[in-house]
C-alpha cells in the first residue's frame, strides 16, 4: 500500500504502475512516460486524500478525480470533459505545452513537478470552453476515462471506440464545440512531435523508445518513411557526431552538411574569386601599357617601338627647322629608315 505522503515523482515507474493497478486504475499506454503515471497517480491516489486539496478549484478537480478514479462505474454517456481528462493525462510534455499555448497560456517548462499543475490548468481551460459543465454530476463522467485498453465502456459509443483506437488522434479530436478548429492543427501537432524528437540528439535510448512506442498508435501519419519535418532536415535517428573520434567530416560525410551556412559562405567567396583573377589580368595589361608609354617618353633608343620614336624625333627636328612641315614630319628625304 502506498504511503500517501510519498512523492509520486520519486517512485519508480514500475512502482507507480503497481500502485495504479492496486487502485483499479487502468494503465495508460504501456510505454508512456513516467510523468503520465505520475499524473495518474496524483489524480487517483490523491483523490482518496480529499483533505490534501484545500482550494475550491481543486475540490472540483478532485470531484472530477473521484469520477476518474471510479472506474467501476461504466456509464454509457460520454461527456466531453471526460475525454479532456483522459487526453490531458495522455499528452506528452510537448503536446501539453502546445495545447496550453493554443489556449493562450504561455506555460513554462513542463517537468515532473510542474506537469500536474499544467494538467490541471489545461483541464480548467478546457472545461471553461465547454458550454455545459457537468462538474457536480460526476457520475456521468466516468465513461471513457478508461484508456485504450478498456473496451467495456463502448456501450453505444462509436466515437469512443474510434477514439480508443488511437489515443493520439483522440488528443487532437476532442469533442468540443470548436472541434473544427482543432482539425487543421492536427498535422501541425503531429509534425511538431517528430520534429522535436528527431531533431534532438537524445542519447537516452529508453526515452526515445517510450516516445516512439507511444506514437506507434498512429504509425502511418507520424512516422512515414520520409518525415516532412518543418525545418527541412531529414535526419536519421542516430547520426554520429561530426568530427568526433575517427569520424572526420570530410571523408565520412561528403553530403552531410550540404547547406551549412559556412560552406555556403565559402562557396560564395569562391564564386567571387573568378572575376578577381580577371581583374588582376586586366590590371597587368594596363600596367604593361603604362610602362610602355613611360618608356616611350624616355626616348630610349633601343626600345622596340621605333616608329613612335622616329615620329617623335622627326617632330622635334621639324620644330627646330621651323613650322613649315609640321603636319607630317615623315619626309622621305630625312628619314632613311624603311617603313
Amino acid at each position, binding site marked *: 500500500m502506498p504511503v500517501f505522503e510519498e512523492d509520486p515523482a520519486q517512485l519508480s515507474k514500475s512502482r507507480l504502475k503497481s500502485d495504479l493497478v492496486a487502485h483499479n486504475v487502468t494503465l495508460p499506454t504501456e510505454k508512456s512516460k513516467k510523468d503520465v503515471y505520475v499524473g495518474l497517480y496524483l489524480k487517483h491516489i490523491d483523490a482518496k486524500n480529499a483533505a490534501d486539496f484545500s482550494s475550491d478549484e481543486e475540490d472540483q478537480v478532485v470531484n472530477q478525480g473521484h469520477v476518474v478514479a471510479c472506474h467501476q462505474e461504466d456509464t454509457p454517456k460520454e461527456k466531453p470533459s471526460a475525454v479532456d481528462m483522459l487526453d490531458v493525462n495522455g499528452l506528452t510534455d510537448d503536446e501539453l505545452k502546445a495545447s496550453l499555448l493554443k489556449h493562450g497560456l504561455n506555460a513554462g*517548462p*513542463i517537468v515532473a513537478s510542474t506537469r500536474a499543475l499544467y494538467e490541471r490548468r489545461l483541464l480548467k481551460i478546457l472545461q471553461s470552453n465547454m458550454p455545459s459543465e457537468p462538474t457536480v454530476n460526476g457520475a456521468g463522467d466516468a465513461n471513457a476515462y478508461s484508456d485504450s485498453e478498456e473496451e467495456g465502456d463502448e456501450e453505444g459509443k462509436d466515437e469512443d471506440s474510434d477514439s480508443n483506437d488511437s489515443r493520439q488522434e483522440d488528443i487532437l479530436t476532442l469533442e468540443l464545440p470548436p472541434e473544427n478548429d482543432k482539425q487543421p492543427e492536427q498535422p501541425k501537432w503531429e509534425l511538431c512531435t517528430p520534429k522535436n524528437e528527431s531533431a*534532438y540528439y537524445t*542519447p537516452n535510448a529508453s526515452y526515445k523508445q517510450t516516445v516512439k512506442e507511444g506514437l506507434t498508435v498512429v504509425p502511418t501519419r507520424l512516422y512515414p518513411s520520409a518525415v516532412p519535418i518543418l525545418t527541412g532536415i531529414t535526419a536519421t535517428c542516430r547520426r554520429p557526431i561530426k568530427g568526433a573520434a575517427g569520424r572526420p567530416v570530410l571523408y565520412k560525410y561528403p553530403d552531410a552538411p550540404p547547406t551549412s551556412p559556412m560552406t555556403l559562405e565559402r562557396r560564395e567567396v569562391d564564386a567571387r574569386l573568378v572575376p578577381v583573377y580577371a581583374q588582376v589580368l586586366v590590371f597587368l595589361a594596363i600596367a604593361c601599357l603604362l610602362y610602355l608609354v613611360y618608356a616611350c617618353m624616355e626616348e630610349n633608343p633601343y626600345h622596340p617601338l621605333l616608329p613612335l620614336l622616329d615620329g617623335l624625333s622627326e617632330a622635334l627636328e621639324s620644330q627646330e627647322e621651323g613650322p613649315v612641315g609640321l603636319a607630317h614630319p615623315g619626309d622621305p628625304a630625312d628619314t632613311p629608315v624603311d617603313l
Partner: protein
Amino acid sequence: MSSTTQKHRDFVSEPMAKKKVTALAGIGDALGKRLEDKGFDKADKVLGHFLMLGKDEGRFKCWLKDTCGANSRQQDHCYRCLREWCDSFL
C-alpha cells in the same frame, strides 16, 4: 582544476538578471535553442531547475543531457558555472 572559460567568468561575475540561456557556459546556440523549445528560455529557469534538483551534479547533468543533448564537457561547464554562481549569489 581546469581553467574557466571567458563565458564562465562573465556569467559568474554578476547576477544573471534576464540573461538568455545561451549565456550559460557550455550552452551554445544549438543547445540554447533546444532548451528554449522545452520552455527554458532564460538562464534563471535553468537555475530554478538546478536548484530543484538539489544542486546535485549527477541529476543536473543527466537532465541536461536528456533535455538538450549536451555532451559531458558541456554538462560539466554548465554545472560548474551554475554552482559557482549559486555560491556567489545565493
